[in-house]
């Protein structure tokens, strides 16, 4: 499994990716998704395996990195670390920042490694199942993915659906891939090849975040002092091992579902930790179980989210959407054939994720104090620099200035979307799945001779449609239950 990784080049890429991921995770507003999108153009100089190893190590380390800022400055470095703030910061305020970070590091590592094991065993099984899928099944699966995203993603399900439909709509810009007819190009030649993924992602994540930061300039972070990260004591292990394992399972499962991966996983992991705890009253006041529950779950979601990404080509989270784009631009088509034809490539990714989890444990344990200092870089210096990298990275992919303008447009749009409660993640997933949704729908209709009802005669497709309906009904039932 590790054989492809025994090259000095790949190990350097892994170490760089892990360090870079940690820095991205530590900086509030950045994170593995934005960082992955920013670094994607640079991966063009690498071979496919190195490129994906770089992106996955950023993903694993970035997810953990968010915990450092959550514990020390009460601001989650990534949305997935939001639940870690609830107990991490209160514990740090009691003078136990080292203990809080130690627990976050250990539980993140265990969660991450657990999810890689799930990935190794579950992804090939899912890929094998996918051999049974035809066009109608893939269409139904993509619809299921989008409805799940709307249903269990953050925010209003209807707004998520609108955002997802908008993402699919963006994918229709350009020449129709089946008939070569121009759609929404308005006579602009550059638009006939469609809108690239990178300008949209960098715009929606990096530029919109820059605009958000421009509204938060009066915000002052108070950093709690940290002497050193401490390994959890035997008592802490006794108290939390069940929570860590439970949250690892929850995180891996949530990760497999197409949604906002780690964010949802950490919230569920945290609330389940509280439910099963013997001291639920301690939650919110610096409970070590709370930190373990949230951190094990959000890191476990990383491997889980890679399962549908690699086995079906359906991203399990926003960051895996970036990784999926990385795979596509390097000519690797995820799906069952990838498992049959390029097992070395896949085992390289699995091994890289495993090593990345061990590396961030080492770097986090010995370097958390140093990484925490990165938060001292003021926004007025940091964000203009990120802008320069965003612009050059976006330009570099197809050397088109139009792409830079598209990035700025989506930056402004993303800001207003977030301001009014629309998540930008469904737009990205919709954009990624757009061609699959439309292509499989149209090809299915050719197979069915235009008869839509024939979808219902395919058992797997029908199951996905029923699951989609359940996913849509779930928020309604949940809100009714909450009202009662």
């Amino acid at each position, binding site marked *: 499994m590790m054989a492809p990784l025994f090259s000095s080049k790949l190990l350097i890429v892994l170490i760089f990716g892990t360090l870079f991921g940690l820095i991205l995770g530590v900086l509030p507003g950045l994170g593995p998704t934005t960082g992955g999108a920013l670094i994607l153009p640079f991966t063009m100089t690498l071979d496919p395996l190195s490129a994906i190893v770089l992106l996955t190590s950023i993903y694993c380390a970035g997810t953990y990195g968010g915990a450092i800022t959550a514990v020390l400055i009460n601001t989650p470095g990534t949305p997935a670390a939001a639940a870690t703030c609830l107990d991490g910061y209160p514990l740090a305020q009691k003078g136990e920042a080292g203990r809080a970070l130690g627990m976050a590091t250990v539980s993140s590592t265990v969660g991450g490694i657990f999810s890689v094991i799930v990935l190794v065993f579950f992804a090939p099984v899912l890929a094998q199942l996918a051999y049974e899928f035809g066009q109608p099944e893939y269409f139904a699966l993509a619809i299921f993915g989008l409805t799940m995203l709307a249903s269990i993603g953050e925010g209003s399900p209807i707004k998520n659906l609108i955002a997802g439909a908008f993402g699919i709509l963006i994918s229709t810009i350009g020449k129709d891939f089946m008939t070569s*007819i121009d759609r*929404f190009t308005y006579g602009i030649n550059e638009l006939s090849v469609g809108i690239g993924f990178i300008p949209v992602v960098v715009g929606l994540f990096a530029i919109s975040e820059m605009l958000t930061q421009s509204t938060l*300039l009066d915000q002052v972070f108070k950093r709690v002092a940290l002497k050193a990260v401490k390994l959890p004591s035997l008592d802490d292990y006794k108290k939390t091992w069940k929570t860590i394992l439970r949250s690892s399972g929850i995180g891996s499962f949530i990760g497999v579902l197409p949604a906002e991966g780690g964010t949802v996983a950490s919230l569920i992991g945290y609330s389940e930790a509280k439910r099963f705890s013997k001291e639920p009253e301690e939650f919110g006041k610096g409970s070590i179980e709370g930190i373990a529950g949230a951190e094990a779950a959000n890191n476990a979601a990383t491997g889980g989210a890679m399962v549908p990404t690699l086995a079906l080509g359906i991203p399990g989270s926003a960051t895996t959407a970036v990784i999926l784009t990385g795979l596509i631009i390097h000519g690797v088509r995820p799906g069952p054939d990838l498992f049959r034809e390029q097992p070395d490539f896949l085992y390289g990714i699995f091994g890289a994720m495993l090593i990345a989890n061990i590396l961030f444990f080492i770097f986090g344990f010995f370097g958390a104090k140093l990484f925490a200092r990165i938060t001292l870089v003021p926004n007025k210096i940091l964000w203009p620099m990120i802008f320069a990298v965003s612009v050059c990275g976006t330009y570099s992919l197809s050397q088109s200035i139009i792409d830079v303008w598209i990035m700025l447009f989506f930056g402004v749009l993303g800001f207003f979307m977030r301001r009014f409660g629309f998540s930008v993640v469904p737009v990205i997933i919709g954009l990624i799945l757009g061609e699959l949704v439309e292509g499989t729908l149209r090809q299915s209709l050719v197979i069915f001779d235009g008869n839509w009802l024939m979808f219902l005669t395919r058992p797997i497709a029908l199951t996905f449609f029923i699951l989609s309906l359940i996913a849509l009904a779930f928020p309604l039932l949940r809100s009714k239950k909450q009202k009662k």
Partner: protein
Amino acid sequence: MNNVRNKKRANKSLPFFFKDEFKVFFVIIFVSTILLVTTFTFDKVPPILNRGIQPATFPKGLLVLIMFLTAVIYYLSFKNPWKKEKKLPKPFFLTILSFILFIIISKTLDFFLAISVLSIFVSYNWGEKRIFYLLLVGILFPLVVFIFFEMILGLRFPPGIITNLYYY
């Protein structure tokens, strides 16, 4: 006296067209309608070449879905009004202005000059007044980025008054 008047005004509920819910509803419906009209201008494929559905059908369906769901969220907002957002501060508008400046300068003068101007403009307006740091973000860092992309990634940037000095 003015304070009392302002307070009274603030307590009055806003007319519907000033509320965020309506603004969002209006913008989405307006843009979707324009796009929907555009779909009627798409070329049609002769039946013999047509596979499944016409190229305009899928985007039409999506736009109708977006409009329908937008109407639903607007309807739901009558029962549960949205949280009122804070007014946007001055640095936000200055950042937007810097984007416009960036587009104009990159189109007419130079791509890297545009990055430098934006970086200094944003950094200054976000509160950085020290010359050294302004030069760092406005000149030194873009230079490092230029060298990295040009030399390591072999990228050729668009011609301009500064970039040409390097290329010619």
